[in-house]
């Protein structure tokens, strides 16, 4: 489960930040918690544009995709903080990421109260029509005397308090599961698979479907190659090294950008007929509509659904099993959304691989074996393929999103 934690304070020192950091660290095996700050969000003003704030865009994107949100609120003047209220006003005006989102409230304070009044107000606020969050009932976690509550390593000293926090968090996890059924996915708008909305990186001078696209764009943009060094976000490699690295991946990888343009695949060296998802070098650069032009219209709808689902943040990834593979192959396609630094959709990283050798290895290592059972491809393709026994799944399956 993926949660985001919102630090309800914009001040440099905050016991509520400390509380969230403790939760993240202490419960890391139970759920993933990403802590988000609100210190750079300007004061809400309905005459101004929310998208001007990077931090607000990030909050909106991350909250939209999270399974649940944990808010840690300080108490100021008998209520929640200005900074937090301001963020909630922004996120209930033009955009509504909290809609039907499970939320848990906690708080830390200097004095005994542990933000009791702020938490009650916050509940009222999250219940307002523009916000419409699903706040976990009960399970009030109030951390009083916060100055004495933590040790030097940022751990809560009292074992009883930690145990109670664990109980509250477990209840939240169950609650997230229970309210999942009430979640309404965002409607998917029609996808433009013809790449008519160039983005900053789009090279408009060369036709995407040009079979010589890579060569022409490389010449036009003076693209580096060979032993030229490229600085990545945490490493420096030459172009040759990047190529070796990507070619050695035990997967077929495809990169399609935000404009639905197929930019890259890592197996140009491979015999196309030996690929699980057949690609040929002349396809690089092509429109997704062209790449898939052999598909019947119904399958094209599936391509649109995959892109739209990722673009809307309804799911971070989509997994499918391709039906009709030979017995020694479990052909799995994993479509993973890529994101810009502000958390908005940046395209698809498609990962295609044969799951069978991994599965066989795992069974051998652990001494486990598959037992029978009626496997079926559920309409919700995001539930992992491993729920089905592979042989039966392949017999039964008929809804692969894309066969290429």
């Amino acid at each position, binding site marked *: 489960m993926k949660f985001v934690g919102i630090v309800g*304070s*914009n*001040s*440099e020192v905050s016991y509520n930040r400390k509380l969230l950091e403790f939760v993240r660290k202490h419960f890391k095996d139970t759920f993933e918690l990403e802590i988000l700050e609100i*210190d750079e969000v*300007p*004061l*809400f*003003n*309905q*005459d101004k544009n929310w998208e001007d704030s990077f931090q607000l865009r990030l909050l909106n994107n991350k909250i939209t995709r999270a399974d649940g949100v944990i808010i840690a609120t300080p108490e*100021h*003047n*008998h*209520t929640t*903080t*200005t*900074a937090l*209220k*301001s963020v*909630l*006003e922004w996120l*209930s005006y033009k955009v509504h990421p909290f809609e039907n989102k499970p939320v848990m409230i906690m708080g830390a304070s*200097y*004095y005994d109260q542990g933000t009791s*009044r702020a938490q009650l*107000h916050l509940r*009222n*606020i999250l*219940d*307002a029509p*523009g*916000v419409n969050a699903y706040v976990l009932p009960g399970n009030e976690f109030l951390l009083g005397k916060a100055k004495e509550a933590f040790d030097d390593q940022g751990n809560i000293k009292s074992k009883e308090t930690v145990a109670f926090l664990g109980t509250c968090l477990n209840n939240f996890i169950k609650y997230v599961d229970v309210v999942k059924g009430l979640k309404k996915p965002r409607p998917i708008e029609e996808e433009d698979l013809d790449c008519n909305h160039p983005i900053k990186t789009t090279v408009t001078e060369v036709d995407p479907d040009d079979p010589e696209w890579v060569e022409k764009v490389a010449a036009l943009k003076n693209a580096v190659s060979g032993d030229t060094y490229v600085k990545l976000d945490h490493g420096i490699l030459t172009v040759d090294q990047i190529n070796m690295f990507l070619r050695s991946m035990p997967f077929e990888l495809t990169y399609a950008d935000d404009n639905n343009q197929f930019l890259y695949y890592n197996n140009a060296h491979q015999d196309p007929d030996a690929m699980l998802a057949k690609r040929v070098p002349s396809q690089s650069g092509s429109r997704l509509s062209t790449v898939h032009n052999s598909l019947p219209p119904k399958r094209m709808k599936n391509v649109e659904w995959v892109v739209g689902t990722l673009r809307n943040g309804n799911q971070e990834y989509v997994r499918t099993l391709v039906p009709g593979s030979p017995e020694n192959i479990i052909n799995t396609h994993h479509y993973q959304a890529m994101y810009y630094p502000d958390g908005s959709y940046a395209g698809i990283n498609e990962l295609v691989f044969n799951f069978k050798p991994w599965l066989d290895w795992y069974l051998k290592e652990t001494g486990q074996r598959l037992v029978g059972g009626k496997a079926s491809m559920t309409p919700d393709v995001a539930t992992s393929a491993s729920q089905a026994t592979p042989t039966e799944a392949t017999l039964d399956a008929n809804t692969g999103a894309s066969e290429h």
Partner: protein
Amino acid sequence: MKLIGIVGTNSKKSTNRNLLVYMQKHFADKAEIELVEIKDLPLFNKPTDKKLPGSVLEIAQKIEAADGVIIATPEYDHAVPAALMNALAWLSYGITPLLNKPVMITGASYGQLGSSRAQAQLRQILDAPELKANVMPGSEFLLPHSLQAFDADNNLLDLGTVQKLDALFEDFCLFVKIAEKLSNAQDLLHKEAQDFDWEKL
């Protein structure tokens, strides 16, 4: 009598501003009401040096010098707007201009609730140890359907509403005088508020 009217929003268009402008004109023979805007205050972030922006000090001085304060609050998400919370956060950070100050709460909303929940929350906020304002009890003035409430000259259309506001304002003028006499604990409260420090609790 000199009063300050705080416009509880930073929005360009506001029926809460309209309400205060109406009161300013309507009660001109009973009190001088100066409107104060909060839209230019920076976002409160607990500066460690406790240095307050000039715009905050200016408002604080006006409140200090006034006999009473009228606050008109909108309601955003069942609560007081962040902009007004922001102003009150600054006005209670190392300074206490609202301490024992007679306050009348009013509010307007587009819907039919007239900012009732925001007003209830505002009462609680004004009761906090660093604010300790003297809010007039039993004086809720809710203006619902505020987009339809005024005519072209910004006068309140409904006679019943005008009568209620008149009566409440009359009471508030009296309340300001009574509050002046409630001075026994004033020095003590001032000292308490000034010495108040969460770090030392």
